[in-house]
C-alpha cells in the first residue's frame, strides 16, 4: 500500500468482474481530422433530480449513436438508475420518473459501466453539454472511480454557430426543433430527447459541410473561435 494513498479520494470498491471491465475501457482519443461522417458520435441526454450541479443526482441515461452519418437504431442506450436515498421532490414533475421506476432501476455502477462501454472512445454530443458532462462525470467518479475525459461538444453552441440567421437568445431544444420544423415523436424521456437532439445534429452536420467544416477537429476549433468572439467585449 502506498504511503500517500490516504491523500487520494476514496475510490469505491468494485467486484472483480466490474473492475476488469473498467480497466478494459478504451483510452480516450482527441478529436481528429477524419470526416464528420467517418466519426462515430454518441448523442446523450440525462435526467437528473434537478439542476444543481453539486447536489442533484443522475436518474437516467438516454443515448443514440450517429455512425456513418446516420442515426443507427440498432445502437441505443437507455437505463434508469436505482437510487435508494431519493426523496420524492418536485423534480418528479420535471423528469417524469416515478419513485417506483427509480426503485426498479439498474444498479448504478453496472449501468454506468455499460454506458461507458457503449460510448467507447467516441466523442459525445448533447444539448447544453457542460451540464451533462458534469453530472455524468460526478456519477462516474462516485460509482466507478472513473475520470470522464471524453470530448463533449455542445449542440446548443453548434446550432447558432451554423445558423446565425436564427436570432435566438438562449434558445432551448424546443426552439431549435421548431426552427428546423423537425417532426419528432413524443418526448417524455431521456432517450426520446437524445433522438431529437441527434436528428438536429444530422441537419447541423449537413449545414457544417456546406460551410466547409469537414472534420470533428475543424468543428471544435470553429466552436471555440465562435465562443471567444461572443465573450469578447464588443465595441
Amino acid at each position, binding site marked *: 500500500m502506498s504511503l500517500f494513498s490516504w491523500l487520494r479520494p476514496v475510490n469505491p470498491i468494485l467486484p472483480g468482474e466490474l473492475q476488469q471491465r473498467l480497466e478494459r475501457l478504451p483510452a480516450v482519443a482527441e478529436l481528429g481530422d477524419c470526416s464528420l461522417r467517418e466519426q462515430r458520435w454518441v448523442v446523450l441526454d440525462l435526467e437528473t433530480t434537478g439542476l444543481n450541479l453539486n447536489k442533484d443526482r443522475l436518474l437516467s441515461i438516454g443515448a443514440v449513436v450517429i455512425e456513418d452519418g446516420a442515426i443507427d*437504431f440498432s445502437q*441505443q442506450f437507455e437505463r434508469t438508475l436505482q437510487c435508494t436515498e431519493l426523496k420524492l421532490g418536485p423534480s418528479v414533475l420535471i423528469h417524469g420518473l416515478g419513485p417506483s421506476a427509480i426503485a426498479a432501476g439498474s444498479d448504478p455502477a453496472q449501468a454506468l459501466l455499460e454506458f461507458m462501454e457503449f460510448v467507447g472512445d467516441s466523442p459525445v454530443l448533447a444539448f447544453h453539454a457542460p451540464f451533462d458532462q458534469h453530472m455524468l462525470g460526478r456519477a462516474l467518479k462516485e460509482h466507478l472511480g472513473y475520470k470522464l475525459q471524453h470530448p463533449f461538444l455542445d449542440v446548443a453552441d453548434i446550432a447558432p454557430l451554423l445558423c446565425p440567421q436564427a436570432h435566438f437568445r438562449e434558445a432551448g431544444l424546443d426552439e431549435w426543433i421548431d426552427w428546423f420544423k423537425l417532426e419528432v415523436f413524443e418526448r417524455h424521456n431521456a432517450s426520446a430527447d437524445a433522438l431529437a437532439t441527434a436528428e438536429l445534429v444530422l441537419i447541423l452536420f449537413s449545414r457544417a459541410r456546406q460551410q466547409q467544416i469537414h472534420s470533428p477537429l475543424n468543428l471544435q476549433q470553429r466552436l471555440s473561435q465562435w465562443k471567444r468572439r461572443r465573450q469578447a467585449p464588443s465595441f
Partner: protein
Amino acid sequence: MVMSKADAFTQAGKTAVLQNIQGTLQFLQRFPPFNQMENAHLAYLVEQCQLRFYAPGESIIKPADGPVEHFYIVKQGRVVGERPHTAKGGTETTFEITTGECFPLAALLGERATRTEHLAAEDTFCLQLNKLAFIKLFALSSPFRDFALRGVSSLLDQVNQQVQQKAVETLGTQYSLNTRLGELAMRHPVTCSPITPLREAVTLMHDQQVGSIVVVDEQKAPLGIFTLRDLRHVVANGTSDFNEAIEGHMTRAPFYLTPDHSAFDAAIAMTERHIAHVCLVKDQRLCGVVSERDLFSLQRVDLVHLARTIRSAQKLENLVAMRGEIGQLVERMLAHGASSTQITHIITLLNDHTVCRVIELVLAEKGDPGVPFSWLCFGSEGRREQTLHTDQDNGILFEARDAAHAAEIRGKLLPIAQQINQNLALCGFTLCKGNIMAGNPELCLSRAEWARRFAAFIREATPENLLGSSIYFDLRVVWGDERGCEQLRQGILDQVGDNRLFQRMMAENALRNRPPVGRFREFVLARKNGEKATLDLKLQGLTPFVDGARVLALAHGIDTNNTLERFRQLVDKEVIERLDGAAYEEAYHFIQQTRMQQHQLQTRENLPYSNRVDPDSLNHLDRRILRESLRQAQRLQSSLTLRYQL
C-alpha cells in the same frame, strides 16, 4: 399484479430499451403496409434501420450508384424522382414520395440500379433499411411482401376493404354485391317433375313458403320454372282444372347462372330480364334458386322492383317520383361496397328503362307517327358511364329514301322528340346546354344524313368537329332498331382507321385536359378568388382516360364505347400492354368511385352537384391513391404523345 424483483427488472429494462423503437413503430403504424405487419416484424425493421438526413437537392440514390442496396421510408420531408428528359433535354419529375411512403421497390426487387435519380426536395429524413434486412422481412411478413410486389394495386385493395368495412359498421352485415350466389342460396331448391299436377306443385310451394318451384327432369336439369306470378296468370285465365300437369303452365328454359356468379350478376340479369328468380345450375344440375328477396333482403328499395316499376309506369309523374328512389339505391349500393363500375352500369340500365318508358308514354299520348325510328344517345350515356348527375345528349336516327323524304319524316318526328326531351328533363335528365338533343332538327337525321355529318367530322378536323367527334362517336341506341346505328359505327371505324391525320388530331385533343399532378407539389390546383384549391375529378381525372381510350379504340377498329371495355379490348389487340391496361383501369375506377362518393356526400348535405374535390378533405390513403391514379392518366397521355409524335 405481483412481480418478482427479477421480472420487474427485465421488464423495465426491456421497455426502457424500446422507448425510441416504440416511437418509430407508432409512427410507421400510421401507414400501409406497416399498419398490417406483425409487431415483431415491424420492431425488427425499426431496429435494423438507420435514420438519414438529406438537404434540399441532395441525391439519395441515382442510376450511377449501381444495384440498389437499401430500402427507404420517408420519415419527414419530400423526395422527387427525376429522369433525364430525352426529347426536351433537362429533367422531368416523374414522381413524388412523402411521409410514410417507401422507395425504390422495383429496383430493389429487380436487383438493379434505379432508373430515376431520387432527390430530396426539402429537408428530408429517411429511414434506411439494408438489403439483407429487407429480404428477411420480405420472406417473413406477408403484408410487407404483398405491398412490395403489388405496389399501388395493393393500396387500392385496401381502399375497397375500407369502404366495405365502413358499410359493415353502419349496416351491421357482410352483405356485398360481390358475394357468390352459391353462398346466398341457402335453401334447398323446391322442385317437381313435369307431370306433377298444378295443385300438388302449389301445395308444395305453400308448405315450403317459397315463391317459385323449379320443374326438373330425372337428372335434375331444370326444364322450367313456375312462380307466384305464373299462378296469378293461371287464375286470371280462368283455368279451373288444377289437376293439369304443371308442364303446361311453367315458363320454359328458365334463365340460370352458376353458383360462382356474383350477386351483382344476378341483380343485373333480373333487372334486364324482369325476372324475380334465377336458377343456379352446376354441371347441368339444378343446385339452387336465388330470388330477388334473397338478393335485396336488406334493402328497402330493390333494383328489380324499381326497373319493373319504371317499365310499367302509367304516367310521367310516376317516373319523376322514381328518380329519388334511384338516388337511394345508389347510396345503398355504395354503402354495400359496390364498385363504381357496377353502379354506373346499374344507373345506365335504369336510365335506359326510364328513357324507353318516356318514349313509349309520349308515343301513346301523341299517337304513333307511323315512321320507325331509333333513339340515340351520345357521350357518357353512350359509353354507359352515367352517374346520377347527368345531362341529356341524344338524337334520332331513321331511314329515308332521299332528302325530301327525310325532311318529311323529320317534320313528323320533331314534335315528338321535343316532347320527349321535355319529359326527360322532368325526370331529372338536365336539358343539354349545347342543344345536343333529338328535338333539335340538326340531330333528328336519316342514316345518310348522319353518315355525311360524321364523314365531315373526320375530313375537316376543325376544333368544333373534333369536339363533336368526342361526343357523337360514342353513340348507342337506347330505343328502337339497332341496325342503322351499327352501320353508322362501322362507317366511322373504317374512315378513322384509314385517316392517320385525324387520329393525330384526336390524340392532340385528348391532351387538352392535363391531370393536375405537378413537379413540386402533390397536386397543382386551381384556386378561384381565395377559395380553397380544388381539382375537377371529371375533367382533369376521367376525361384524359375517356379521350385516350376513344382515340386508340377508333384507330384500331374497336366498336365498343365503354372506356374500361375499350381498354380491355386494346389489351387483347396488344395495342397497349396488359400491365398498363390494368393500371389505367384501376386508376379510372378509383377516380370514378371518388367522384360518386363526393356526389353522395353533396346530396346528403343538400349541396349542388360538383365534380370538384379538395384533396385535403380526403383521408391519407385516398389522397395518395388519387395522386397515383392521376399519374396514370399522365402516363396514358405521354404514351399518346409518343405514339402520334405530338
